[in-house]
């Protein structure tokens, strides 16, 4: 088995026949989602499954940048049970923070168990379409958004007040959450146009074969 640094901070390639990506486990021994843990030279890596996380899928599909750094503050909209957010938490490390906004109490229940172990994850039971509910969140370096709602671009715009100058955002869009009858490519083009009003598009990646009819945009706040 070979483990090498990827070109993105805090993300590693694990080669063992197949190529996988991984982060360094912030809480060694802890694998709340049944993910594979690999120990090498006293470092424990957590395998990041692209079938279970859209950000991992975007990386596997060769997204140009993943500008997340150690110590970053992150706003994560639609954190669900915290699966993807837990990898973001690994990357930003103990000096970083991940504000996890989620509207559904049932999945928030699971996220709380994860946050009790990962001390940089801050649970916020709130509605991402109404940022007033969590106005106390400080300025962040990065927003991840995966809320499976029809008005994704609008929601990101509303939340961009939390983003530092030149801050980045990554947003996952599922065409079927927007409109079940229209073509995915048309829906994605519309959202891209709307995003461009406020953001510069750095890259975009369709997520097939990991997720059907999904796209991820990486954007930067216009100065």
């Amino acid at each position, binding site marked *: 088995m070979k483990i090498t640094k990827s070109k993105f901070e805090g993300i590693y390639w694990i080669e063992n026949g197949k190529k996988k990506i991984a982060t360094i486990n912030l809480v060694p021994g802890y694998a709340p989602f049944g993910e594979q843990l690999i120990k090498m030279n006293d470092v424990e890596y957590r395998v990041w499954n692209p079938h279970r996380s859209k950000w991992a899928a975007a990386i596997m599909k060769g997204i140009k940048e993943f500008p997340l750094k150690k110590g970053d503050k992150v706003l994560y909209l639609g954190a669900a049970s915290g699966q993807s957010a837990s990898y973001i938490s690994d990357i930003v490390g103990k000096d970083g923070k991940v504000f996890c906004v989620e509207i559904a*109490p049932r999945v928030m*229940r699971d996220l*709380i168990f994860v946050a009790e172990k990962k001390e940089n994850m*801050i*649970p*916020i*039971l709130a509605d991402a379409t109404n940022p007033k509910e969590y106005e106390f969140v400080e300025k962040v370096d990065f927003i991840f958004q995966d809320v499976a709602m029809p008005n994704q671009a609008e929601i990101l715009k509303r939340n961009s007040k939390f983003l530092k100058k030149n801050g980045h955002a990554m947003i996952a869009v599922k065409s079927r959450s927007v409109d079940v009858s229209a073509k995915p490519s048309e829906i994605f083009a519309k959202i891209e146009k709307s995003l461009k009003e406020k953001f510069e598009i750095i890259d975009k990646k369709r997520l097939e074969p990991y997720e059907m009819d999904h796209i991820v945009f990486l954007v930067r706040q216009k100065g």
Partner: protein
Amino acid sequence: MRRQRKKKQKKIEKEPVIIKVAPFGIFAFHKGKLVKKELWKEKDAAGNFFKRDEMLKEFKSKIPIRAKQEIETLFGPEIEKFAKKNGIKFNFQKFMIEFTKLKIKAGFSKDKLIIQSINMLEELNKVINILYEKLREWYGTYWPEKVEQVKTIEEFIRIVGMKREGQSMGFDFEEEDLEIVKSFGEELKSLLSLREKISHYIEKIMTETAPNLTKVAGPIIGAKLIAIAGGLDKLAKMPSSTIQVLGAEKALFRHIRRGTKPPKYGVLLSHDLMRKVKQKNRGKLARILASKISIATRVDYYSKGRDIIWKGLIEDINKKLEKLQ
């Protein structure tokens, strides 16, 4: 007399008192000086902040200065620094975990138990049907003539496992072959009584939480509607046209995507009144039922199950039903 004089002495200050509510306590400032504070233990912080309106009321009455009061809320990770400066032990992340737990707890209501129960009842029905079908086959290899006579599950559980009488074309079971069939029969019997129990339970909590919906839709259909909507609150906020087709989501998607015919009803098809009208009028009846169910649900939700209005609704339905027939 004395009290009056005392009151006069305490003049009303022009400058307002600023009250700051933080997750670790309440502080009152006047002319920039701290005039009163109440600190909370770390383990009580989330609970006290959660009911801060109550805490504030008490705190306000104890402020020694008479003046207009202005309230500010201090919240967010930056107050960790404020706490540190003032020698208070406080961790924002831990606070948010406890605070979110309280929010989750407060968000539960009895309708969530209705959802769990009705989902369980549906699963139980599936299990019962499968076991019944398989066990009928199994016992039928031994005593086909008897099984042939038995038409309902209730009759079947009374005879399954019984020793054969008379001539039979069935296979001759040994003691142990019959014994295992008998055990399954007993389990099936206890599943039926479990079904009875959960049905009564659903009817009871439905009547308590949504009495009008229960009367108009029936306890089982009412519970199913709540489950599909995701809660009594969500059902109360749905337009009646949506309620009409709840349970027909697949057909609805097919309609939107491929332009097939839109569904006219979902779970409302199993409403008792549906059997009283012709096939072609079922869509109309579903619309009538949905509109009354919608009213019933709203009243149940907003009056917390206290206002009883179902009689009028059922009269309306019956009047309209007569015209359809």
